[in-house]
């Protein structure tokens, strides 16, 4: 359920980045205070372990297809919230760069969706609340399954909200929700039982790994968690504002919703020369400062009786012709550079 750049608007992507980045810095600060140098290689190696663990797959019961673990909650149980969040973020960075899972802008959202919930909700509020010292294997299993399921449900819900707020998909909110939540319930159950099995088995092999690591000692207290949430919220709001200058030149999901609230009537217009558009853009910004309305036809309302803009077929034709021309020039440019390089290498 990795988010992708192509589904995000800059405002949503930027806000998620700010929240995730703020949390990374906060976690690193917390770690510095109670720093155990031993933790650094352990964190790195466990991050690499997640990749290695994904090499080993298993048959998903009843379906016959194969799956592998995500491992977010496992990291939280082994390392505790702050180090676990940093490791999850690192794993996602490597995935975004090498596997192109999602992309660079979506990375902030992905770190949030897959990191915040296991590290700061699933682990401290659910797992730790159920598992006390000397807990039985059954209790550990229940706690693991519950925390993984809830973490993944929140993650899936965030994906839906982020996509919807970005306004790129046509999927209605409820349909989207109905698509995402049940799938992630199934995934969560499997991942939960796998996580529980690993925790229980590792406990029988090396009890100290599960019971005595940093995580048990430094379960985050409610106070600092509240502080963290406040910091994250403020950061998200600030960047949301800062990034909206990007939105101000072109409409996106946020504007679409604002437009809906204000109920601005649609004005069908022809797409044409730049100057005309710019002039119209200025008119619009004066009415609704900071938010320019659709320049290219009134495309942003999904419902409502507004007439669909009549697009001049000539313009759309020239759009297609122009696209291919520009693309051809770019490709020629690339081939040219490569050619020149080869010539140079020959000399």
């Amino acid at each position, binding site marked *: 359920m990795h988010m992708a750049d192509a589904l995000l608007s800059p405002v949503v992507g930027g806000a998620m980045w700010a929240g995730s980045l703020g949390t990374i810095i906060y976690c690193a600060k917390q770690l510095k205070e109670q720093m155990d140098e031993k933790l650094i290689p352990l964190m790195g190696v466990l*991050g690499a372990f997640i990749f*290695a663990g994904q*090499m080993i797959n298993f048959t998903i019961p009843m379906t016959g297809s194969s799956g592998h673990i995500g491992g977010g909650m496992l990291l939280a149980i082994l390392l505790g919230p702050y180090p676990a969040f940093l490791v999850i973020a690192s794993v996602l960075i490597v995935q975004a760069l090498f596997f192109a899972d999602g992309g660079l802008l979506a990375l902030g959202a992905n770190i949030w969706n897959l990191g915040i919930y296991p590290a700061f909700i699933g682990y401290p509020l659910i797992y730790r609340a159920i598992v006390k010292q000397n807990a039985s294997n059954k209790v550990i299993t229940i706690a693991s399954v519950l925390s993984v399921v809830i973490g993944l449900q929140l993650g899936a819900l965030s994906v839906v909200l982020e996509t919807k707020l970005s306004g790129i998909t046509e999927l209605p909110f409820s349909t989207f929700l109905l698509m995402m939540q049940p799938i992630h319930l199934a995934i969560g159950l499997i991942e939960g039982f796998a996580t529980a099995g690993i925790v229980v088995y590792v406990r029988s092999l090396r009890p100290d790994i599960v019971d005595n690591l940093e995580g048990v000692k430094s379960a985050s207290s409610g106070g600092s968690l509240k502080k963290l949430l406040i910091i994250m919220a403020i950061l998200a709001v600030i960047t949301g504002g800062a990034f909206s200058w990007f939105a101000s030149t072109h409409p996106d999901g946020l504007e679409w919703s604002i437009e809906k609230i204000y109920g601005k009537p649609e004005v069908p217009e022809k797409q044409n020369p730049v100057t005309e558009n710019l002039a119209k853009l200025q008119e619009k910004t004066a009415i609704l400062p900071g938010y320019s309305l659709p320049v290219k036809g009134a495309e942003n309302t999904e419902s409502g009786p507004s007439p669909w803009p009549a697009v001049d077929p000539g313009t759309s034709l020239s759009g297609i012709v122009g696209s291919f021309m520009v693309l051809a020039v770019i490709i020629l440019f690339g081939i040219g550079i490569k050619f020149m390089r080869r010539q140079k290498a020959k000399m």
Partner: protein
Amino acid sequence: MKFETEFFNIGYLDTLSYKDTFVHRLDPRIKITVSFIFILFVVSFPKYELSALIPFFLYPVFLLAAGNIPFRAIFKKVLFVSPFAVFIGIFNPLLDTRVLLTPFGIPVSGGWVSFLSILVKFVLTVSTALLLIAVTSFPGICEALERMKLPKVFVLQLLFLYRYLFVLLDVGLRMSRARDARSFGKKGKEIKTFIKLISVLLVRSVERAERIYQAMLSRGFRGEIRVLKHHTLGLFDILFAVTAVAFFFLIKKVHIVNFVGETVSRYIR
């Protein structure tokens, strides 16, 4: 098998990143920042925008060509990776059926236009992310992150993760292969076996981390790793950044595609 190929792909991208070309030599901070700005520009286009996105292909094509990166390596990855955007986008043509364009008299619905727009944005952003790592070594990226004031602890363990990624992937691959050699068909892949295998892998990893730490201590580790290669911001770096961002601004403000298309169509007529 999928993961085996993915694994070799990491290694392949890693080797690519140690080439020595103009873009490889650029300061990693510049490359990260410019690529990020590029992605912001791309995603800031409205959902029915298609032709205006085309000029943006210049940036990934430039990285590919100037960085001497084989086209197929990136193309194959983009093609097979991350189905999420496509999966969500494919609903647009089904749900948004109002006719938006009629090129050559063929009605094209808004849903198809926005779906194509998602695909174009997807190819642009994903190829840029892949090319960024293909022209920048991972340690270089870590160095940049640290100099962009990300916490030291975070960067340190990220470096560790990368260093041991290849070692542990090898271990995981060997375990998986050993299991496959001992099992027939679906047998041996049950979740029970999986749990035991992965637990052993986990314990081994933790023990490795303990050994690594001891080894580091005996070599005088004091919570810091020193890197030899330090990039400095040069004239070329700044020139590259300014040109690139100015270019993004230009093609965002001026609709080059329409201009070219209109001129050409007029010429034909």
